């Protein structure tokens, strides 16, 4: 018989149709971004001045933009940027945040107080403002936006990991582990951390949604990925000027952001319910 720590996870996930919808859209988006060069009908950077701001038709499904570029192709390529930013940023935030939070919660004492204090301070800022401040110091661009959004999500991971570590370290199996002569290091990474992973995984998916939103917002403000990159937020921003004459320039990137953020949120909620049935209302 094959056994796993969360034996019913998939069955529980599957029970909620919205969760499955979210997961399918996320997987489709990853697939599209991987296959973008082969499935995109046009070159996303190719400008054609005979085709400026054409509405939707059979050739250009989503129409063309103010420089005559195919919007569908740009959205497909844009998903690569979005996924790169959100994935690396949330991974960075999760690694930094979980480790810091875990150490703070496990060891306690003055270091813990200092970390909690700084975390509360960071969380008191609106996420967008914090990200803008970081961009101001590291400069715009792909790296800048990844660092800025990672700085935004780190404190949330710190708080969650610290709470979980506090909870887990009081459990008997941790005392039992030190009874068999485990080192602090091994108790931390083989006992406490794996048991904190479920809530961290949920936060990971939900943070993906937040980071996508913030990254698009930063690009919209011109602080993120710079043109001519087909970043969704930047496309939205450029289309804004022509909102009255050619709304499709903004509608499609806007829809893309909305759908992806929504599906990460749906999946995150479903994952939380599946991992912890007690939290289901």
């Amino acid at each position: 018989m094959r056994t796993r720590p969360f034996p019913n996870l998939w069955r529980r996930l599957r029970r909620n149709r919205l969760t499955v919808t979210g997961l399918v859209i996320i997987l489709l988006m990853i697939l599209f971004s991987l296959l973008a060069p082969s499935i995109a009908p046009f070159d996303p950077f190719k400008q054609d001045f005979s085709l400026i701001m054409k509405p939707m038709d059979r050739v250009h499904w989503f129409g063309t933009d103010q420089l005559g570029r195919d919007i569908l192709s740009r959205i497909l390529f844009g998903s690569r940027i979005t996924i790169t930013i959100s994935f690396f940023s949330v991974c960075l935030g999760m690694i930094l945040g979980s480790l810091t939070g875990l150490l703070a919660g496990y060891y306690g004492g003055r270091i813990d107080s200092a970390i909690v204090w700084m975390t509360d301070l960071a969380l008191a800022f609106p996420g967008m403002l914090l990200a803008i401040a970081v961009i101001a110091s590291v400069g715009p661009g792909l790296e800048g936006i990844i660092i800025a959004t990672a700085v935004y999500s780190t404190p949330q991971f710190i708080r969650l990991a610290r709470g979980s570590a506090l909870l887990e370290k009081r459990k008997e199996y941790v005392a039992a582990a030190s009874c068999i002569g485990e080192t602090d290091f091994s108790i931390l990474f083989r006992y406490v951390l794996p048991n904190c992973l479920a809530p961290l995984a949920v936060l990971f998916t939900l943070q993906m949604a937040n980071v996508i939103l913030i990254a698009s917002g930063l690009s919209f403000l011109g602080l993120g990925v710079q043109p001519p990159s087909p970043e969704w937020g930047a496309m939205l921003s450029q289309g804004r000027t022509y909102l009255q004459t050619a709304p499709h320039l903004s509608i499609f990137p806007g829809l893309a952001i909305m759908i992806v953020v929504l599906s990460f949120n749906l999946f995150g909620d479903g994952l939380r319910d599946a991992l912890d049935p007690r939290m289901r209302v």
Partner: protein
Amino acid sequence: MKQASPTPLLKVSDLRVSFHTETGVVRALDGVDLQISEGEIAGLVGETGSGKSVTGNTIMGLIPKPTGYVDGGEILFDGEDLLKLGSEALRRIRGKKISMIFQDPFTSLNPVHRVGDQIMEVIRLHQPITREEAASQACQIMEMVGIPEPSLRLRDFPHQLSGGMRQRIVIAISLACRPRLLIADEPTTSLDVTIQAQVLDLMVDMNQKIGATILLISHDLGVISETCGKIFVMYAGRIIEWSDTKLFFERPLHPYSQGLIACLPRIGERHARLRTIPGTVPDLREVPAGCRFHPRCPRRTEVCQSERPVLEEAEPFHWVACHRWKE
């Protein structure tokens, strides 16, 4: 029953532990003395809050750091004072020479690792052997603690096993390195009665097969009487009587011990209600002066209220701390 050897395996003397909480200083242990010889099964009995578990945890070095303090005394294990050892030296002893079983087998196993890995973990921590060798040792020890088909159960997660099976796994983990001392803190309290008997039998069996000395902590005199050769009675952070088990049940000397034994329900005896000892264990933030039992004692006199009784030898293998045991 083995005779007490000249140097006991574990000798705790005048151990004092306190917890500094927000509501005051709790003196959980106030001069605890224990002596356990190699190969013995000793029972530590007392009411909730009498300091039994704190004693076990202190021997193991598990006093929670920011609040708990060892104020004095020594814990000699095999001639070495455990309280003076550094954390690295202590870590090497834990699991190898001394190990501990906790009350609740539902929380004392790590839920995310397979039970086989958890047994192999302790083996590999203390012995430089390969995974395969550790796995075969784990199978052996699982077989020894009565787990059927150990090579299959090795791959189970804790949540797939029953309470009795989990406690067997916990015992297997604690015995995997053949420790010389096993501290069992209420190992059967959260199990149902038939499983309790099996687990106790298993512990006696392991005591004989592996030769592990056992300190069994329990609030259940019945459990202690069935398994232990020696019994220590604790009250409000002190040992008030210790004795050979047989002598203890024949002639309990301390009024508290007499009360405890009188409380045991007996089959065939007609009583409308169970007997109890009047009063409750004192709040350890404000303990009574003198003998700590005097407010509840039917035989108290003035000296009991002012002077602390010390343990004295009433007869061979029978010590008591009471001013009036002779009467």
